[in-house]
């Protein structure tokens, strides 16, 4: 009789979006300049400063920013949760490796194929999202992550052995895909990953600003609002899952060619939960949140390690961080830090102007 329209309420897992005033005209060139400066630094300034260990760390961060970006879109824009994004990156790595041993396709094609196959699998996992939300969707996706992990453990990553799955005992536990000829060195490969990440951020920004972004905003507001605006909610929800999974799959494909290669053990299910925590801390309403999330997920542990602090501490820190975000700063660090900096700047400015007035 009644459809479940009224039971599909707003997602209780997601904090309420902060409503910021629209950006002023002057802020836009400034923002563009900051982005351009950051990209230039990442591409040319950073690589000479780092040794091979840190090169591996920052490459991992660049790659994981894409996984975080996809999850941030799902949570912040559509109001859906997925706890299988890291495992989907493992699927991407598996597909890319499999194809690289079986075919002689060029590197970008392998990575794209990894993205598309992962998108298809992610869309299948997203099917329950048409009926469920919040805790139950989180649970279903977590179970899916567990199931995929079991399958991947059973079939292992191909490492150059014979047969379809191509695993040989002599090949070692981890597998590495050959890199593209223009990115053979670690520094060049880091640049390659940064460029792919930039493309993914542009793809995300395009989606958010165009028709899909508006449809997602309606869906996040409420199912009834979306339907009465003519939004095909089935299509746009699955599209969001496909996009987030595509990003995870592309990231996985890139991970397969990073230094050290990949192993099945590298994608434990709980990392998806940690990813959710850092994505919330980074901020789900801004694409910058994904950059912060990648820093928290990959660079912060390496820094702590470097300083001799146990990385176990992070679980506690992330817990406190998520609590803080849910209670006081729904926009996460990407929203809060610029606001706090601006406030600090105003305070300092006021102190100086007072001194001048006194003098």
């Amino acid at each position, binding site marked *: 009789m009644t459809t479940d329209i009224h039971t599909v309420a707003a997602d209780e897992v997601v904090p309420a979006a902060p*409503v910021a*005033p629209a950006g002023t005209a002057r802020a836009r060139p400034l923002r563009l300049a900051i982005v351009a400066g950051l990209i230039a630094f990442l591409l040319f300034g950073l690589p000479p400063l780092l040794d091979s260990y840190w090169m591996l760390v920052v490459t991992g961060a660049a790659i994981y920013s894409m996984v975080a970006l996809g999850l941030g879109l799902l949570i912040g824009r559509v109001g859906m949760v997925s706890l299988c994004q890291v495992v989907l990156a493992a699927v991407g790595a598996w597909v890319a490796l499999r194809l690289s041993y079986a075919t002689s396709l060029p590197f970008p094609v392998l990575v794209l194929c990894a993205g598309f196959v992962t998108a298809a699998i992610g869309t299948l996992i997203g099917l329950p999202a048409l009926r469920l939300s919040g805790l139950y969707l989180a649970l279903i996706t977590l179970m899916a992550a567990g199931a995929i992990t079991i399958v991947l453990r059973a079939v292992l990553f191909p490492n150059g052995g014979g047969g379809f799955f191509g695993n040989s005992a002599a090949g070692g536990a981890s597998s590495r895909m050959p890199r593209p000829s223009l990115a053979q060195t670690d520094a060049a490969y880091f640049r390659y990953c940064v460029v792919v990440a930039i493309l993914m951020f542009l793809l995300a920004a395009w989606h958010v600003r165009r028709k899909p972004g*508006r449809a997602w905003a309606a869906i996040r507001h409420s199912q009834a609002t979306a339907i009465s605006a003519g939004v095909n909610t089935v299509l746009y929800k699955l599209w969001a899952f496909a996009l987030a999974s595509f990003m995870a799959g592309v990231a996985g494909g890139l991970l397969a060619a990073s230094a050290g290669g990949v192993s099945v053990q590298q994608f434990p299910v709980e990392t998806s939960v940690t990813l959710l925590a850092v994505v919330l801390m980074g901020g789900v309403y801004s694409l910058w949140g994904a950059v912060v999330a990648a820093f928290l997920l990959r660079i912060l542990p390496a820094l702590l390690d470097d300083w001799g602090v146990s990385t176990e501490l992070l679980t506690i820190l992330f817990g406190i961080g998520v609590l803080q975000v849910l209670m006081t700063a729904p926009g996460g660090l990407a929203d809060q830090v610029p606001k706090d900096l601006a406030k600090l700047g105003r305070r300092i400015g006021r102190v100086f102007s007072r001194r001048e007035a006194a003098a």
Partner: protein
Amino acid sequence: MIEVEDLTVRFGGVVPIDAMTLELAAGTCGLIGPNGAGKTTFFNVLSGFVRPSTGRVRAFGEDLLAIPDFKRPRWGLRRTFQTEQAIAELSVFDNVLLVHEHTGGDRATRRGEVLKAVSFTGLSDVAHRLVGGLGAAQRRLVEVARAVVGRPRLILFDEPGAGLPDEETVRLGELIRQIPEETGALVVLVDHDMSLVSACCATTAVLDFGRLIAAGPTAEVLRNPHVVRAYLGTEEEV
């Protein structure tokens, strides 16, 4: 013209709409009745959120109930909700654009039509502000703009004046009254505010316990003793 024939909705033992037969001709039609009379349920049937157990709804000759819910806006159905549903994270312009682009509006004339709907509701000054930063009255107007954009054929307003101060309600009423002429759509207005209904609607239908108890010119209907009794909830003097 909307023809509702023998419409019945059952939720288990509750019958919010009971064998309702109703014709809505053109212009702005009022739909009133005490709480629980079935007004919102009727809107939910038209929107596709509630499936009736029996009955038919023909809208301009088409079987409305046969169209899937999300395609009805494309057909020309628009509605607002009792609790205002403007999307806070989008600008006023984007809120209206959302409806235009998802209801098959022509891409070439999109910007102009969206701006026209925005200016019709008097929101041009705040067109690029986020809806979250607007007041209650302006958010209600965003919903009106979303309702008139594109090619609406049937617009359902569910208590559009709820929670608004009187002078804002008067302005809203003036706006709603212009909609049929402006867009050619048939407007159905549900509200408890009789002055708003009298101001906007030439004809009014009255529901009570899911049944149609009166219909006709608004002034006549409001004088009808059955209607007065339904609203005051009393029968004869004791």
